[in-house]
């Protein structure tokens, strides 16, 4: 596991050296601030549920931007050769990068805790849904990041990786959203695969096993496939 920590540290340097991390964080906070302020003024309710509900779509777009260069750039610039000829396993490489991106994602969420402080100050918010929302955001982030990382392993181009990630996540969002009120036979399957329904229950204060299992298993699956793809240089 030593390799994971080392890769994690290196990627943190990479993130904060490039402007991408700052731009992503700034965009996210601008959107969140806008939703928070307008929805608060509109509803006059001390709740985060509405504004956090809107973050899912923004995160579907921003998470792949965080991850897009993680593996694609290694392959394009050739640094992958230096990396995997050092005594680290492919899993350590992938997992270290995943943790770094997830950490950045959590750092990005952190300032929104100020809204909670603010709500506490002006009103009496129900803390249940707020806490469950943050648990949901963290889990959802892990899944988004792992999907983005998977896309990054598929191509040499950052841009292609980013677009693939965004398309996949937006698709996963709508696949559940579109069938949410219909009763066609495949609706249940689509709803389970899609990200929308799972996230919705967290915003209502529900932390269900089914949703937690969904996020964790999707994350594990994507990381597993990513490791295989990094390994695939050995049998191509």
């Amino acid at each position: 596991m030593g390799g994971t920590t080392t890769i994690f540290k290196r990627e943190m340097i990479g993130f904060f050296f490039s402007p991408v991390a700052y731009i992503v964080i700034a965009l996210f906070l601008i959107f969140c601030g806008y939703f928070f302020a307008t929805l608060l003024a509109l509803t006059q309710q001390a709740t985060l549920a509405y504004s956090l509900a809107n973050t899912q779509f923004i995160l579907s777009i921003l998470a792949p931007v965080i991850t897009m260069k993680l593996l694609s750039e290694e392959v394009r610039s050739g640094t992958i050769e230096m990396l995997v000829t050092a005594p680290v396993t492919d899993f350590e490489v992938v997992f270290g990068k995943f943790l770094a991106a997830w950490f950045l994602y959590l750092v990005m969420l952190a300032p929104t805790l100020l809204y909670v402080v603010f709500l506490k100050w002006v009103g009496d918010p129900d803390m249940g849904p707020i806490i469950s929302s943050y648990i949901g955001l963290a889990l959802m982030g892990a899944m988004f990041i792992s999907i983005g990382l998977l896309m990054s392993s598929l191509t040499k181009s950052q841009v292609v990786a980013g677009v693939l990630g965004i398309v996949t996540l937006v698709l996963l969002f709508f696949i559940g959203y579109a069938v949410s009120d219909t009763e066609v036979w495949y609706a249940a399957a689509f709803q389970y695969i899609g990200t929308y329904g799972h996230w919705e229950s967290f915003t209502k204060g529900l932390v269900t096993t089914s949703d937690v299992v969904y996020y964790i298993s999707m994350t594990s699956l994507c990381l597993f496939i990513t490791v295989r793809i990094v390994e695939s240089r050995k049998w191509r």
Partner: protein
Amino acid sequence: MIKVENLSKRYADMLAVDDISFEVHEGEVLGFLGPNGAGKSTTMRVLTCFIPATLGFAWVAGYDVFTDSLKVREQIGYLPENVPLYLDMRVNEYLMFRAELKKVPRKDRKSRLGECIERCGVKEVQNQMVGTLSKGYRQRVGLADALINDPKILILDEPTIGLDPNQIRQVRQLIKELGEKHTILLSTHILPEVEMVCGRVIIIDKGKLVANDTPANLLTQLEGGSVLKLQAKGPEKRIAQALKGLAGVTSVLEEAHDGAVKHFMIETGKDRDIREDIFRTFVKNEWVLLEMQKVPVTLEDIFHQLTTKEEVVAVEEESEKSGVGIG
């Protein structure tokens, strides 16, 4: 320390390495020579576990590169061909990261870092971003990276490419010093480099091993068959004819004209001194012999001969048809 047995590597449509076998012994500096695209980098990538072989086996420090890849990677320091480095880190930051990745014990990291920075001459740039460094400095950072875990085996792919003459000299000196403590496999297509730093040479061409010997032995192998350079005045066609007719001459090549002075290159078979015969031929025909010089064989000639055989034959046939005096 390194053992390669019947190794082949096939990419989608081409055979990059074709059934090569060789060994590198402990403490040896082995030069891995070949024209561009001969399969040097591919072989090195197999040895460093970056890509697997299609067929055959390779062991590094006693570990199989395919089944014991992690163990192998702990034993080696590798400098890939184009020295891919993270451009967004400072030199000392990068080397510290590499030391950690290569499992250098925490307490030794600082001292290893200091030593490698000093040895590879990157001290003055240690706080600079790797991305701002020149090619020469990047090459040296790569070398420091290869050395950081004090590996038993160094695999260096074209370590002097892209350096200026002074830097080349420094790096060669460094490799020479390192050769005292480490086993080194070094690829290059620069021949003086091999003569200077390597104890033994293997030459590969189009994926095949064509020679495996010490530089000195390779030289003596060809020394017998030597090359003579002539300058003469007279009818060049007839001179060429006559030279070709001498016993022991394998080829006669007419070189540039210099007014009335004609230049010839004569290749002779092994252990044959035909200088006297040439002299007598000239006297008999009353041609004027201005200069006769024995050209010493260099590693360059051997390399050329071993790696361009087919082309030379083709050229000779071609010129025979057009009748431009080649024997």
